[in-house]
């Protein structure tokens, strides 16, 4: 059984009668890392949003199975409990919500759902320090409000830190590499490589090939106009970097005609 199976997924924005995804098919096995590339507006982030359960998107057709179960039936928090994690493209600032309280609430609620005991305060702090050191983030960030006043790089690194804390089965990274300088990009990539293991799948959505210089994907998919039109290995990412998306567009048009 695949970790994630997306079949003929059509989705749009409920209120505005806009259709964005036009039949996405994708299968990801546990332990695999797939990259989804594509130009702006191709539907990459919409796919991530639908997977995480964002309510403003409406699924019109198709299905998503997560570990064989219908994912679309679940609330966002239930998806997190089942093991889905979305690293946000734009992490939200939550003034007044301390990082420590937030992580404690989150970790204990997923632990409870997974049949594990809540961590005591002391064990939690130890666990938090371990994970902070694993993904190499400044422990001082845990003393602040969630993302408040964080730099762009700190926000993205904080997403990887939360990934490490929540131990999901499927991690979706929505353009986590965007806007990072080289140090932060390497830091984020190192984090992903450390957290990528046999029991976890990754879906890395990216605009650029550069993060794939540090992370070697099992598959690279190209998304155009709400569909996956081409899949290949890492070579495909290099080719896209060199040649852009026009040749894919032409190829897709030819195939359609």
């Amino acid at each position, binding site marked *: 059984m695949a970790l994630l199976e997306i079949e003929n997924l059509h989705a749009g924005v409920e209120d505005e009668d806009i259709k964005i995804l036009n039949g996405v098919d994708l299968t990801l096995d546990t332990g695999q890392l797939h990259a989804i590339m594509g130009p702006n507006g191709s539907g990459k982030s919409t796919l991530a949003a639908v997977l995480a359960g964002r309510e403003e998107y409406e699924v019109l057709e198709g299905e998503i199975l997560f570990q064989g179960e219908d994912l679309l039936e679940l609330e966002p928090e239930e998806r*997190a409990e089942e093991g889905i994690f979305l690293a946000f493209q734009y992490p*939200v600032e939550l003034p007044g919500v301390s990082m420590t309280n937030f992580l404690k609430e989150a970790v204990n609620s*997923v632990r409870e759902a997974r049949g594990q005991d809540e961590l005591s305060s002391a064990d939690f702090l130890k666990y938090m320090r371990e994970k902070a050191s694993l993904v190499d983030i400044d422990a001082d960030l845990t003393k602040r409000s969630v993302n408040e006043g964080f730099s762009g790089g700190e926000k993205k690194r904080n997403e990887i830190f939360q990934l490490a804390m929540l131990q999901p089965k499927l991690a979706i990274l929505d353009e986590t590499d965007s806007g990072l300088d080289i140090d932060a990009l390497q830091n984020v990539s190192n984090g992903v490589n450390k957290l990528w293991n046999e029991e976890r799948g990754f879906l890395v959505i990216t605009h650029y090939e550069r993060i794939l210089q540090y992370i070697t994907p099992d598959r690279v998919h190209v998304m155009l106009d709400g569909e996956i039109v081409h899949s290949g290995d890492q070579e495909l990412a290099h080719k896209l970097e060199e040649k852009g998306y026009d040749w894919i567009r032409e190829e897709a048009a030819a195939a359609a005609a």
Partner: protein
Amino acid sequence: MTTALDTDSDPKDRFISAFEVNHGQTLNGTSASISKQREDAIEHFAELGIPTNDLELWKYTNIAKIIDRPYTLPLGAEPPSVDESDIAPFLIDDMNAHRVVLVNGRVDESLSDIGELPSGVVVSSLAQAGDEHPDVVEEHYGRYADYEDDAMTALNTAFVQDGAFAYVPSGTIVEKPIFFLHITASDEDLFLQPRHLFVVEDGAIAKIVEAQHALTDAQTFTNTVGEAFVGERGNLDHYLFQDEGHSASQVHTRAAQQKDNSVYSTQAVTYTGEVIRNNATVEADGTFCESNLFGLVIGKDDMHVDNHTRMDHVQPDCNSNELYKHVLNDESTAVFNGKVYVARGSQRIDAYQQNDTLVMDNDAQIYTKPELEIYADDVECSHGATTGQVDEEGVFYLRSRGISERQARILMLQAFSEEVLSELGIDAFRDHVTELVRDRFATYV
């Protein structure tokens, strides 16, 4: 002895005639130190009358309607018997404090537990202080709250009998909080007018907590006036927790004056009540003063809460910081009107004012009006107001981490109020209030 207000006459005249009836007797029995301004005050009240919506300062709060009820004025009456078990729910666990309990505006010594105070510090009833420390009382009483132009202060001053008193002499530190627990208890509809005076002299440091609770569902109206003085290099934290229940209305006036290099921080957390008007006035009458005014309103049902602040900068090189937040549920209404006044020549003033409101329900309302009146040219003053709803993006972010929608909403509301509550500088009190606020939020989602 009590006087029933004569509801056949106009509300203003009721008070004037009650004053005339009692003036020669009951009111005369009060300490001379606090009685001197009575006649002056009733004359000002007679001129000013009960505030109506026609006045800009009272535009959104119809206090006249609430005052026009058949209240009884308890003048010289013995307070009804209240025992330890009655006040137990209002005591704050873990807050080791010098406790004074006032029942219907009068200190009840049997319920109080003042404990040992540093040398020279006085914590007592105002009436007792008037007799025992007339020099301190006369130096400060009636100096900071304006009974000449403010009708409700004039009314309070005319009928003054008792209230809370704290005196911290020069250079003295009171480590434990001074806790004034105000209880209303009566089967009758009461009109109460407690009067408080807090004096923190040069270099002295104190924290004062006031909590208002009720043991009755009778309709009550409390017209409080509290005055505070903070001497040079002094530091006073002054907190107020308002939780008198749905049948209690009040006008609560706090007026403070501070001298050079002093810090005065005040916060009112309004939790329950019917119609509540808070006036917080601070005069920074010294250089290098810091003044902090905070407020949190947790509105429910048809509560109406009006916070008026006035920050007077009459000397240069001071800063003031105001933050008021509202979370309004049901049909509750809040008003915020904050005025910052900078006198001619008061240069290098840094004044900040902010009012933020979460409107949880279509029927809840907020009226907000920041005002700046500046006569100096080298100042930095800013004000802002926001009104909105809980940030849905934040709720989704929390849910995506496994936190239930309900818990996510509670967390977002707590986070909103945290910015104000974190300014409460007594851990046990802050935890107590935070828990109550959190309990309320749990009923909102």
